[in-house]
């Protein structure tokens, strides 16, 4: 049953990924990517990582992809590739390079990963408990954890600053109009 679930989910993930880069419409791309993220979340669950499963859902699916959709809709940037390609020779070359990269990555994956099933047993049962992850976060990885906090803070400030300037410019252009209340999450 594990194999059935895996292949099903993997197929969905692959289909979502391919469809994402093929889709002409950016909203469709976002939806296919969402599908892919959902599939990967399920794979996390299969890998005994329920915490990451929920994180994947709430951060990637719930926040990041919503942001993407939001920006696409706000900008009306669903289809920007209608114009003629300025670098027509780039695409085939990119495909060749992609193929090369794929071959390298797969060789590495086959050589690096073990073909046996991962270990089971009592240790495997306890594995993936959010408590153990949390403990590691606050002991061994305390410093990186704090740094990610600072990164988030910096990101928040950066976004606010970027927005702020735009709002000011708008206000100057059309005096009297109230700058639209930010919809920045």
């Amino acid at each position, binding site marked *: *049953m594990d194999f059935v679930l895996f292949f099903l989910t993997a197929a969905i993930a692959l289909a979502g990924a391919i469809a994402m880069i093929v889709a002409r*419409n950016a*909203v*469709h791309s976002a*939806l296919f990517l*969402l599908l892919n993220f959902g599939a990967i979340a399920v794979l996390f669950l299969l890998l005994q990582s*329920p*915490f990451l*499963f*929920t*994180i994947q*859902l*709430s951060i990637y*699916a*719930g*926040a990041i992809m*919503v*942001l993407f*959709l*939001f920006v696409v*809709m*706000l900008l009306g940037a669903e289809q920007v590739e209608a114009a003629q390609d300025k670098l027509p020779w780039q695409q085939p070359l990119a495909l060749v390079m992609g193929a090369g990269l794929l071959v390298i990555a797969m060789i590495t994956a086959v050589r690096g990963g073990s073909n046996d099933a991962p270990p089971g047993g009592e240790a495997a049962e306890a594995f993936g*408990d*959010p408590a153990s992850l949390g403990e590691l976060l606050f002991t061994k990885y305390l410093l990186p954890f704090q740094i990610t906090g600072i990164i988030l803070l910096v990101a928040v400030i950066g976004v606010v600053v970027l927005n702020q300037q735009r709002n000011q410019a708008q206000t100057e252009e059309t005096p009297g109009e*109230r700058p639209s*209340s*930010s*919809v920045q*999450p």
Partner: protein
Amino acid sequence: MNWLGLLIIIIQSVVIALAVTTAFAYLTLFERRLLARFQNRVGPNRAGPNGFLQPVADAVKLFFKEDIVPSAADKAVYLLAPAIAVIPAIIIWAVIPFGCLNIDWNYRACFAESSSGVNNILQIADINVGVLYLLAITSIGVYGITLAGWASNNKYSMMGGIRSTAQLISYELALGTAVLAVVMTFSTLSTHELVYHQGTLWGIVPQFLAFVIFMIASTAEVVRAPFDLVEAEQELVGGYNTEYGSMKFALFFMTEYIKLIAVSAMAVTFFFGGWRFPGLEMLGAGVEGLAGPVVASIAVGLASLGSFLLKLVGFLFLSVWIRASWPRIRYDRLMDLGWKWLLPLGLINLAATAVAFVLIESFVLASFMLLAFSLLSLAIAAGINRVPKPVDNVTYVSDVRSRAETGQ
């Protein structure tokens, strides 16, 4: 995992889906009757006894309406949106314990801390990240609305969709802080353990502030009045579902109500002890003594389910009451409330919770200290925000007219 277990889970899921759908149907009746009462009307009372068949009539009407797809719409997404909306609303029920009916006929397991071996038939999955699961699914709920708004290719729908996206993401944070405070209080992410830990004291006592935040934020999350400007008829001609009709509209409608029930259930689980009520364990012991463990288990299960539903109905009543009482909030005020009040309060609450439980040994004492703190901070917040801001950015028609008259 054996096939029997899988079968049981499938049956559970189907039953809960059906039950939730039914609950939605009668919640509409419940709301309409109550609203009528609040507004000194009678409400629907013609179909069946006391209007009891009104939901059925509505359903039949919606089924037979013509199914229209706007020609400029993105068809696939347009059709997919209601489904995307309704799915999270239903799967959110997977981790909520409605009661405790031990399938091994051992009711004592319900009152044990460890969630393993409970085999509660009234809860589909007791996973160790249940609370996070709830948050995750809640956050996914935004897609249906957003996509519906975009796919309709209608500016009102679009505005509604974008508004809803912003609103849901904003209030998700406040919601998250409130839920996290509860998690910190009871040191668990499992819903079963949450309920177990509320044996001594319901979550509302240590986390009163979190409860208030949760109530406001969850109301915004399910886009209920007074935060329903996503589908404001007056401004947006109905918002994201303007272009939807018949069953697709019904699905959106259903989504909203199921989510309302779901967040109410979450509130019950987080703050009102879930299916617990004082004396439940004694009841189980008494019945066991009289009729044996099987009957005792069933009795405890039914009693806990009843208790849960009773609390749930209380919350639903509260929600309808709020809808009947408060006017819709302005959009910028909505954002202000979410970002400038709820989120800071939630963060303060988190800090206070952490400090209280680290400093004070006794859970009860700490809980009451936190209650006092919650009341105090709420009072301060209310005091700060007492005076409404002057309306300086609204142009009154009378102003325009007077300006035109003076020739300015």
